[in-house]
Structure formats: C-alpha cells, structure tokens
C-alpha cells in the first residue's frame, strides 16, 4: 500500500476513536485554558508590581504593592490546581480510548485464530505495545494540540490589548510554529513508521530466541546469537536516530522562534526607552509572558512526536481494525444430541505454490461411528480437522452437519458442536483443574474430577501434593508431553459434545499408557460422531473405519474391518 493511503487510514482510525471519546477529551482542554487564563492574570499583577518597583508606579495603572503580590500568589495556586485536574482528566481520556481499541483488536485476533500466521510475539505486540503507543495521542497530543491553538492566542490577544505591536509579534511567531513543524514533520512521520517496524522485529526475534533458548545453549550458539542481537539493536538505534534527527528539527525551529520573539520584544521595548517608555507595564507584561506563551507550544512539540508514534502504531492496527469483517454466519439454536458429518468433493489449498492440501474428498460419518484418517504426515489429515473446527473454510465442495451446510454457521458456533484434542495440547498458566475446566467453565468440581479420571489424569495428579490444583506453566512445565496430552483429553470428556475430533491423540504416549488412554478414548467416542487423525497402529486397530489419505486424496481402499 502506498504510504499516503496508509497514513490516511491511520488518521481515519485515530479520528474515529477520538469522535467516540469526544466528551472525555474536551474536559482537559477546558481545564488547561482556565489555567492559562489564571497565568495571564498573575503575570499582569507581577508586571504592575515590578513597574512600581522600578519607579513608574504612578504611570498608567496606579500604585501596586503587597495586595497585588498576594493576589498573584493566590492565582499561582489556582493555576497549579487546575493543571493537576487537567493532567488527571487527560489520563482518564487516554485510558478509555485504549481500552475500547484493545478489546476490539484482541477479539479480532482471537477470531482469526490459527489463520493469522504472524508470530505470536508480533500479534501480542499489536494489542499491547501498539495500543499503549496510542495513549500519547489521546492523553497528550489531542489536548496539547487544542491548547497550542487556544493558549498562545489568549496570551497574544491579552498582550495586544496593552501593546498592539508586541501582540502582533507574538501572533506572527505563533503562526510560524505549526508551519515549521509541518515542514520538519513530514519526513519524520515516514521514518517513525520504519522505526516501529524495526522495534517490532526486534521484539518478535527476541521472543522466538527466548522460547528456543535451550536449543541455542545446547548447540553452543548463545554467544553468536547475543552478537546478532547486538547487531539488530545497533540497526534499531541507527534507524531511530535517523527518525530523531528529523523529529528534533521541529524542536529546533520552536526554540529558534522562541529566542527570536524574545529578541524582537526586547529590541522593540529597548528602542521605546529612548525618550521614555510610554507604557512600562505593557513592556514588562509582554516580556514576562514569553515563557507562558511558548509553554503550550512546547507541550505541543513534545506531543507532536507522540502523534507520529501513534500514527505508526495506528497504521499497523488499521488493517486489523478497519479491514476485518466478522465472518458471517448463523447462530446455533441448540447443540443437537447427535450429528451426521458429510464431506462432498471438498478441496482446500493453503498456498498455491505447495499444491492442494485436500482435493475432492468425500465421506460421511454417522453418530456412534469413528472415522480414522490415516496416511503419512502432510497427507491432509489435520486439514480435515481444521475444516471441521472452522479454522479454515473449504475452497470448494460442501461440508454438512445433519444435512445442513456447515458454512452457514459462524465458525465459533461450529465449534460448539465438537470437542477437540490437537497434536500439541497447550496448557495455560493455571491449575490442572482450571485447564480442564477450559472446555466447559460451568462444570462442577465433580464433573471435572470425573473427566480427569476418565482421561487418566488422576493417575499422575494423585501423586502430586496439590493434586488437580497443581499449577502448570506456559507450555506445560512440570508435565511430560504424555501427561499434557491427557489433560487435553480430559477437556474433551468434560466438553461432552456430539462430535469428537482427535488429532494424533496418542502421539506422545508410551504403549502402556496408550492402551489405557485408548480405552478412555473409546468411551469418549461411544455414541458420538468421531473423526480421528492418527499414525498409531494401536489406535487404528481399536476403531472399525479407516480412511487412508495421500496427498490430500482418499486412497480408494476403504475397508470396513470387523463388520
């Protein structure tokens, strides 16, 4: 996509979110403007006191002394309080905007499921780092941008009232700031996007290497990997410095304008001095207000960088949030007690370069029947299961449940019909009990224990001090591959769905355990419709109906053993 269109989409995403949170975003701006007004009044009082001190008290506005000083102190406290309130209001606005965008993005990522092939670290960075990077846009940039317009205008007008030329100098300078920033900011926005890509690549690479750390250590490559990590970091630094060299130019232009304004005002009032200054209060008022005049612009300049970061993050989020249309589909009225599964001429291709994963596959499985899919790895066994899980849609052909086209159902509804045990069961960081309950959160303790017994999970948890309440880590630390698989089988028991889908359920079990689990699996499949992908000869022997797959096609030797 051309960078322009991409930037436009990023902006569209951000402004849509800003419209949603309009009410919240207005509060910090009002509070900030009130604080600036207090500041102007305070400086006016200070200028009068100082003028009186310098011996011009009788001119213009009369004497000023301790009462004015006390009032200035009061105004300073009030302005400070308003600023505190403003900061808290903008933090709240940012948090609300992030929460709503994060929820939407994560729901989309989950729904996309295994079809999204980007590394997990990269996808997680979308909902964590990218969303957090948007915070500055809502909590700092939006209020700062508004105040950068309102604040200097208020101050320049106040100055113009007492000394028109000083006011005009300020107004002109204020108008130059956004122009200078826009000129320096265009290149920076592009470079900022590249920097985020580099940062994300570094994150993804690090998660990948961390997960495989044992491999690196065993092959004695940790040192080489550390060095290439250093290279990647150096690359990131170079890119980032390239962004910053340009981004800081906007800061440079602001500083230059601020210094020039001070110079102009000093020069103007210095010249007026020749022959006695006509309006000494106005002279001091305008010079004393210079820091306050540039404060909102400095805040804007700091936040301008945040906006560019947010634009980079929004551009990465835009494809996810703007392009994803929820997959259409009907809702399931109720889970039927039994299910007939029919494939008619089904074909599936993941990647045209690697050929079809499935082609012209037809079969029917009746309730109480188990279909074993056999064949070498890569022959398409797992693809059949993926279709039945709604992880993928078939390219051609028809898959039907009880005679009705399965594609009319939304994928999540399709999955309500089945219990699934994959090749590599993932154990979440939770107790074994919670890991089993994942399949049916409403299950009672008794039901969970029954499922654990049926899958022979209790065989090993009984020996653990905390039994089913033992904590397991990411990837199932503390449990062997076979034990993790048994937890997954317990989930399927607990799920109690009419369709059972098993993908190499006994791949990691030794023959003794396999025989035990096979009994459990037979009980699991009894009375249900089952589709099982396996290499295991023992498993094949237990089930009557086997279909051999080769290169995504059924080998035409369907045998009906034992019948």
């Amino acid at each position: 996509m051309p960078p322009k269109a991409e930037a436009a989409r990023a902006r569209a995403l951000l402004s849509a979110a800003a419209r949603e949170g309009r009410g919240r975003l207005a509060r910090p701006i009002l509070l900030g403007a009130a604080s600036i007004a207090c500041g102007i009044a305070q400086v006016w009082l200070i200028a009068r006191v100082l003028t009186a001190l310098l011996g011009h008290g009788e001119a213009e506005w009369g004497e000023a002394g301790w009462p004015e000083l006390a009032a200035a102190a009061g105004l300073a406290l009030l302005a400070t309080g308003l600023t505190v309130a403003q900061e808290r209001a903008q933090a709240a606005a940012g948090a609300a905007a992030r929460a709503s965008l994060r929820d939407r993005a994560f729901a989309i990522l989950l729904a996309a499921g295994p079809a999204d092939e980007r590394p997990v670290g990269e996808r997680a960075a979308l909902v964590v780092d990218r969303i957090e990077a948007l915070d500055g846009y809502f909590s700092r940039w939006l209020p700062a941008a508004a105040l950068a317009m309102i604040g200097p205008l208020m101050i320049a007008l106040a100055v113009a009232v007492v000394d028109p030329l000083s006011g005009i100098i300020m107004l002109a300078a204020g108008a130059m700031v956004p122009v200078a920033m826009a000129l320096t900011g265009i290149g920076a926005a592009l470079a900022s996007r590249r920097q985020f890509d580099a940062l994300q690549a570094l994150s993804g690479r690090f998660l990948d290497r961390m997960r495989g750390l044992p491999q690196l250590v065993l092959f004695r490559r940790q040192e080489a990997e550390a060095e290439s990590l250093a290279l990647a970091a150096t690359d990131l630094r170079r890119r980032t410095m390239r962004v910053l060299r340009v981004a800081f130019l906007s800061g440079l232009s602001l500083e230059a304008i601020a210094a020039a304004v001070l110079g102009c005002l000093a020069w103007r009032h210095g010249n007026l001095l020749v022959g006695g200054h006509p309006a000494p209060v106005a002279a001091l008022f305008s010079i004393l207000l210079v820091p306050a005049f540039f404060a909102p612009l400095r805040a804007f300049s700091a936040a301008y960088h945040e906006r560019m970061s947010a634009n980079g993050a929004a551009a990465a989020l835009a494809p996810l949030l703007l392009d994803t249309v929820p997959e259409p589909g009907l809702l399931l009225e109720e889970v039927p007690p039994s299910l007939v599964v029919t494939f008619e001429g089904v074909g599936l291709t993941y990647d045209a370069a690697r050929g079809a994963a499935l082609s012209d596959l037809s079969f029917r499985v009746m309730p109480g029947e188990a279909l074993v899919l056999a064949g070498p790895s890569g022959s398409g066994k797992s693809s059949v299961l993926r279709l039945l899980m709604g992880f993928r849609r078939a390219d051609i052909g028809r898959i039907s449940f009880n005679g009705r086209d399965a594609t009319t159902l939304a994928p999540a509804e399709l999955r309500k019909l089945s219990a699934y045990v994959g090749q590599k069961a993932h154990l979440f960081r939770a107790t074994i009990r919670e890991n089993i309950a994942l399949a049916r959160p409403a299950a009672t303790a008794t039901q969970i224990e029954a499922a654990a017994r049926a899958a022979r999970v209790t065989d090993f948890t009984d020996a653990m001090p905390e039994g089913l309440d033992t904590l397991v880590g990411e990837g199932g630390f503390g449990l062997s591959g076979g034990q993790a698989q048994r937890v997954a089988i317990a989930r399927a028991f607990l799920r109690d769905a009419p369709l059972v889908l098993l993908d190499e359920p006994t791949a990691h079990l030794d023959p003794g355990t396999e025989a035990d689990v096979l009994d459990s699996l037979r009980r699991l499949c009894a009375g249900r419709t089952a589709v099982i992908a396996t290499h295991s000869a023992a498993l094949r022997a237990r089930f009557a109906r086997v279909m051999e797959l080769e290169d995504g096609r059924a080998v035409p030797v369907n045998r009906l053993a034992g019948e």
Partner: protein
Amino acid sequence: MLHDLIRILGLWRTRWSWLAAGALVAMVAALAGVALLAFAGRGVSEGLRTGMLAGAAAGSLLLLRPLIFLRPAARYLERLVTHAATFRALADTRVWFFRRLAERLPGGLGLRRAGDLLGRLVSDVEALDGLYLRALVPAVAALAVVLATTLLLGAISPPLAAIVAVPLACALLLPPLLAPGAARAAEAVAEAQGGVRAAAIDPLLGIEDILAANAEPRASARLSAAAETLTAAQERLSRRSAWGGASGTVLAQAALLGALGYGLAGGPGVAGATVVGLFLALAAAESLSALPRAGIALAAAGAGARRLFEAADTPAPVAEPVTPAAPPAGHALRVEGVRFAWAPDREPVFTDLSFDLPEGGRLALLGPSGAGKSTLGSLLLKLAAPGEGRILLGGADIATLSHDAVRARIACLTQDARLFDDSIAANLRLAAPDAPDEALWQALDRAGIGETVRALPEGLATGCGEGGARFSGGQGRRLALARVLLAPAKIVILDEPAAGLDPSAERAFLETLESATEGRSVILITHRLLGVERPTRILRLIAGRAIPAMG
C-alpha cells in the same frame, strides 16, 4: 532501588564518555536558556529604571544576539547526543540480559512465561532510558542552573540569593524525595504491563485450544481485566506525577514571588537586584519543571532494573568449573551411581543409575513416560548436576569439564526441539555454522526430509515460521533431527526421535539410524523398540535405576 540503579550505571560504564557528553551539552543548553531570558528582562528593566538605553541595559540587549543562536543549537545538540548515548547503553543492557539468561536459565523458561520475559526485556530495558534521559540529564541541567543563579545573585545581594535559591534548591531535592513513593506505583505499572502481555500471549499461543473450547470471550475478559489493573496502576502513577509537577511549580513560583516581595520590602534601592532575581527565577522555572517527572522516571527505571536483575540473578543450575580440566580425547561414557531429584522436596528421578556406553556403542533406553528418560539428557548436557555419583566422559568427570567442552561432544534431539523463525539453512547451521550446503542436504536426507525440502520452491532458504509453524509436526521433527545429525558431536542423544512420524517413516528412519550416526555413540531414548534399531545395548529405566533388558 539505589543499588539496582548503580548496578545499571555499572553496566553502562563503557558508554560513559557518550553519557557525560550528553550531560555537558544539556548544561550548556539550560544555562543559555536562563541567560537569554535574564538578559532580555534585565535590559528592558534597567532601561525603565534609568530611563535610557545605555550601560547595563544596552549591554544586556547586545549580549542577547549570540544567545538567540546558541540556545536553539545547544538544545538540538543536547537531544541528539543524549538520545544517541541512551540507545547505545540500552543495546548493551539488552545483550547483557540475553547472555545472562542463556547462562542462568539454559534449560528454558519453565514457569517464567516467555511473554512475561519479553515484556521484561522490551519494557524494562526501555524504562531504563528514564534513568538517564529523564532523571540524570534534567537533574544535572537543573543543578547547573541553580548553582549559576545562586552565584550570580550571591554576588549582587546575598539575602536575595537565599530567597530565590532556597526554593529552587528544594525543587532539586524533589526527584530523590518523590522517587521512593513513586517506585511502588511504577513497580505496579511494570507488573501490570507484564500481566497484560501475558494475558495476550497465552491465549494466542494456545489459540486452537481456546477456539475449540469457545473460550474467546473468557480470554478477552481476562485481557480486559489485566488492562484495567494496568490502567489503575497508571492512574496512581500519573496522580503522583501531577502532584509532583504541582509542587515543582509552587516552588518556582515561591522563588519568583519571593524576589518580588524582597523588592517591595527593600524599596527602590534594591530594584536592580530584584529584576535580576525575578528573571532568573522565571528562567530557572523552565529547567526545574522537568525535575518532578525525573523522580517518577527514576522510580520507573528502578522498578525495571529490579525486575531485570531478579530474572538475571537466578542462580545457574550448574556452575562452570573454576579451572576446567583439559577436554578428554575419547568419548566413552560412564554413569556411576547417579542420584538426582529436580528439587529437594520432589521424588528422586534416579536413585542409583549406572551404565556404560563405549565409543561407537548404540544404547537404547526404554521406559514409560515420567521415568526420567529426558532428565538423563539434562544431566549429560550439564543442564542439571547429579546429587550423588558422577558422569565420566572419556574418563574425565564432566563436572570438571567446561559446559562448552561437554556440549561440543554431545548433541541432543530434545523432545521440545524448537525450530526458529528463520530459514531452514539457518536453523540447520545452528549445529554447524560453517557447514556447506552439501552437508545440509546430506543431513536432511539422513533425516528423511531431503525430498520434501527439494520440492519447496525456495529450498533451503524456505522460512520455518515461528516454532516451525510452516511445517507439519512430523516434518518439523525431522528438520530438528537433521540439525542434530549435522552437529559434529561424537555422542548423539535422540529423545523420541520418531515421535510425530507415521509408522512407515518411523521404521524407515530407525532402519537407517546405524548409517546416519555412523562412527558416533548413540543414546536412543524411546518408549518402545520396533526391532529395527539394532542397538548394542538395551536398558530399561525402572524405579530410578537402569536394568538390562532383553536385546
């Protein structure tokens, strides 16, 4: 906290010249800013007081001109140099952390979640930039401004110097005063950020199981809850930051109004000094305004540093010998009376394990799951050390050999052997970085996946995807196997090498095992034998001992 931060500064010592240069430029920029406003104010005020543009007034306005150029240039340079210094220092920290984990957690992450660790590295290392950019640099710049103000005013009027400098010096104390309080809040934010990341990564890693269980709403709810915790923690931190900012403003205002009060009390005689004091206070306020945030940044950096060191200081499972023995010439393996448990309170895996593996021998080790077959690999590779007994490699106790020497001689196909998100060639070359393509093809052929790779349009350059996601389980397993076969090690441990292979492929592979591993010793760990492996010795693991089984 202080100790952790000092340790971080120690890690950065090779970058001190960069860091010092940044601080120096920041001081120059801050002083230029103060001088700019002070000269402008003084020029006009002196002119008003004396009623003419001469003497101090004219001099001040003349000095203004070079400052108008110096100040923006110095600020630009300050930002470039301080950022360049920070990135260098942070890159060092990142690499140091990786090396440390490779040394301290070589066996993998276990209960420490990879997602959480990534959060540690990316967020915590990045939070360390606050230590320099937002704490040290502003503090040094503000210190220079306060010192200059005190000296200048002290020369004109010591009482005025006290009135202006005392509140400003108090503002200097804000960072160390605010930091401990903010540290807790910052720690909570960092903790909550790790929680959000973990809540996002865990369900994405197990996405098939989440979808299969229709658990998407629950995963979303968990992420929302983690994000709310984060928001609450950030809210507490931003409240502290806002109040810190407010106290800084109040102190700067006290200096400014104090100077004015001094003028009112002293009358026309002190008006000249008052003007200087007033404008210096006004100018100093800008430099000091960054200080309260410096306290927050200091706290955030402290929290990040603590978490980094907490992970990095995990004791190494097996210490390197202080003076490693010379690597032995032979590679006969002998295990003598090994007793081992993963933790003192857990059941021992081995009670009295002993066996021999002569050079070129092929040992099959059988046992049910959970019998400690994989643990043996960890002991041989020095990822764990036996509680009792010893392991001899070529006659030398491996405890006296360097980790590197042992791992150079023993290659292992672990059960969780992982492919990296890189090309097939890069994955294979982990085992032998300089191997030519022919050697890679030979290893792929021996592992029975050469044909599959040849059929790929990109061949050896094909990416594997994260964790080998591009390939089926069986294909990934064979790629990992090819990687081990490529390693120039004399002993090869194959932990369930055929898991995930279909029976005919399994048989075909095991039949070629003898030629594939020619000239090397092999330990084949498996739960059953097909009868084609032709081991020279078969042992069965039972109750923590190795019992000879029928060959």
